[in-house]
């Protein structure tokens, strides 16, 4: 079964053609980072306009690259939420119109379920139960999946998503946008133990909070400059990153232990962070837990993960009606 996957929930227009939820025939992403850079964050109206301009040419490119025509497509999968409502609507509307024009089944996919299924593209089907740690520019969430397509949220961020905090700190340090990859690169040259930033302790065990840490970074740099010293930015970046990642890894492993699962699945753009991947892998191995991590190119938002999740949803008989709208706050579960 050949599925066209469409993802427009934030600032990447992404289309993919995937066979049987596994073989990625094309996976194209039109990044809008250059459009949002001057604003220091994603502007919803700018993102929505760009999605509309990118979508149709990207579809032709994806078909060409996969050696497919529209006649070879068996179903259309699309992200229906969560995300920016105006951005989601462009992809959803196009998906509905294509499904109708071609007489194909439509399947709406939860964006975060897509990130979980990015692992299936890379490693094959993953049997629940597992704990998923989903972390991106818009989300930081620990999820327990006791059985297929069932999710229980164990905890999430109380303030900034991790990717958002990375972007903000990067911006404060004068790095480029998006800040995550820049900060990661800079941190590689720094000492993670140079500055002992606070590790966020939250009331509820699996929730996350980064606002205190963010403030601590700003305070540290400002204080150093007040003393006439220019702080070593690579040390600040490495120490900040270490504080974020350590808490994330601790809580993910605790969640696996407490729910009694032997598998951890990672997903989301921040999983491209080299320190998170390294520390999670070391700690999971020590704990005897199987860890699934998508390759970096499948961590960021993409259409292939949506096509893959859509394939498994369709296989069990799920269908989405043509009157479906965008669900900016769609819960996972």
């Amino acid at each position, binding site marked *: 079964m050949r599925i066209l996957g469409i993802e427009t929930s934030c600032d990447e227009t992404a289309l993919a053609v995937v066979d049987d939820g596994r073989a990625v025939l094309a996976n194209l992403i039109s990044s809008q980072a250059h459009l949002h850079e001057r604003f220091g964050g994603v502007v919803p109206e*700018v993102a*929505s306009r760009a999605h509309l301009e990118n979508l149709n040419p990207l579809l032709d490119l994806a078909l060409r690259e996969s050696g497919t025509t529209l006649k070879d497509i068996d179903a259309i999968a699309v992200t229906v939420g969560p995300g920016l409502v105006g951005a989601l*609507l462009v992809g959803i*509307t*196009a998906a509905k*119109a*294509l499904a109708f024009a071609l007489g194909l089944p439509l399947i709406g996919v939860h964006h975060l379920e897509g990130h979980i299924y990015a692992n299936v593209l890379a490693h094959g089907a993953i049997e629940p139960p597992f704990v998923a740690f989903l972390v991106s520019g818009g989300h930081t969430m620990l999820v327990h999946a006791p059985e297929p397509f069932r999710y229980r949220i164990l905890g999430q961020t109380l303030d900034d998503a991790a990717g958002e905090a990375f972007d903000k700190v990067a911006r404060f340090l004068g790095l480029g946008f998006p800040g995550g990859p820049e900060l990661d690169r800079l941190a590689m040259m720094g000492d993670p133990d140079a500055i002992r930033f606070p590790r966020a302790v939250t009331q509820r065990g699996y929730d996350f909070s980064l606002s205190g840490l963010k403030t601590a970074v700003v305070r540290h740099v400002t204080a150093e400059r007040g003393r006439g010293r220019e702080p070593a930015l690579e040390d600040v970046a490495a120490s900040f990153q270490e504080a974020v990642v350590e808490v994330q890894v601790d809580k993910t492993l605790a969640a696996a232990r407490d729910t009694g699962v032997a598998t951890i699945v990672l997903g989301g753009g921040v999983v491209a962070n080299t320190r998170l991947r390294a520390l999670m892998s070391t700690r999971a191995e020590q704990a005897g837990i199987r860890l699934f991590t998508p390759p970096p190119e499948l961590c960021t938002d993409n259409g292939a993960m949506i096509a893959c999740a859509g394939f498994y949803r369709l296989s069990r008989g799920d269908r989405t009606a043509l009157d479906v709208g965008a669900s900016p706050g769609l819960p996972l579960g």
Partner: protein
Amino acid sequence: MLVLGIETSTPQTSVALGSETGVVAASLLATGPASHELVVSEVARALDRAGMPRSALTAVSVGLGPGLFTGMRVGVAAAKAMAQGLGVPIVGFASLDLIAFSVRYCRRLICVAVDGKRKELFFAFYRPVPGGVTRTTEFEAAGPGRLVAELIARLEDILLVGNGTLVYRRELEEAGKHVEIASAAFGFPSATTLVELAIPRLQREDFDRLYDLRPNYVRKSDAEIAWDSRRRAD
């Protein structure tokens, strides 16, 4: 020829199917802010009611605004994907032009003004000509005060039409007795007009390029407006 028309640039979502001999099915929804999300299912329903398969569609026409940003995008996204999926040509029309065309027999200067939110209207002036109307100004985005000044400056009888008159009626009445405000029934661009106007263009193969077709936003995004004014201040 069977042409599909899609118009979603105002709170009215309208869909029509028609040919050289007239409209065969049409639907109109104004059920709330998200009625444009139902545009694809309305197309399916219209074809069903007309008893035609989707393969009978030979072209798609779409209203390009100016109007509500999200509404326009939904209509244009639906029309473009439909045209791409069916492999048929697409033609776009400015939504204000559709409103002006529907009151072309009034023998007066026409001003079309639709609600643009953010305390602004999108407007343009038209003159009736044999067989239709001709637009005499660019599309403009401005507050009701500015529109009133434009109306006062023109020393001739004017028919003022568009759903903007529903929102700013009291302000717009200040323009004077030479301005007549048309009934709200004419105030929304309609997909049936879209189909009617599309047919001659399709007959002479005056198609739009699918990739290039985009809404008439007229106004930049708020973030861009703020950015521009900061840069001017520097």
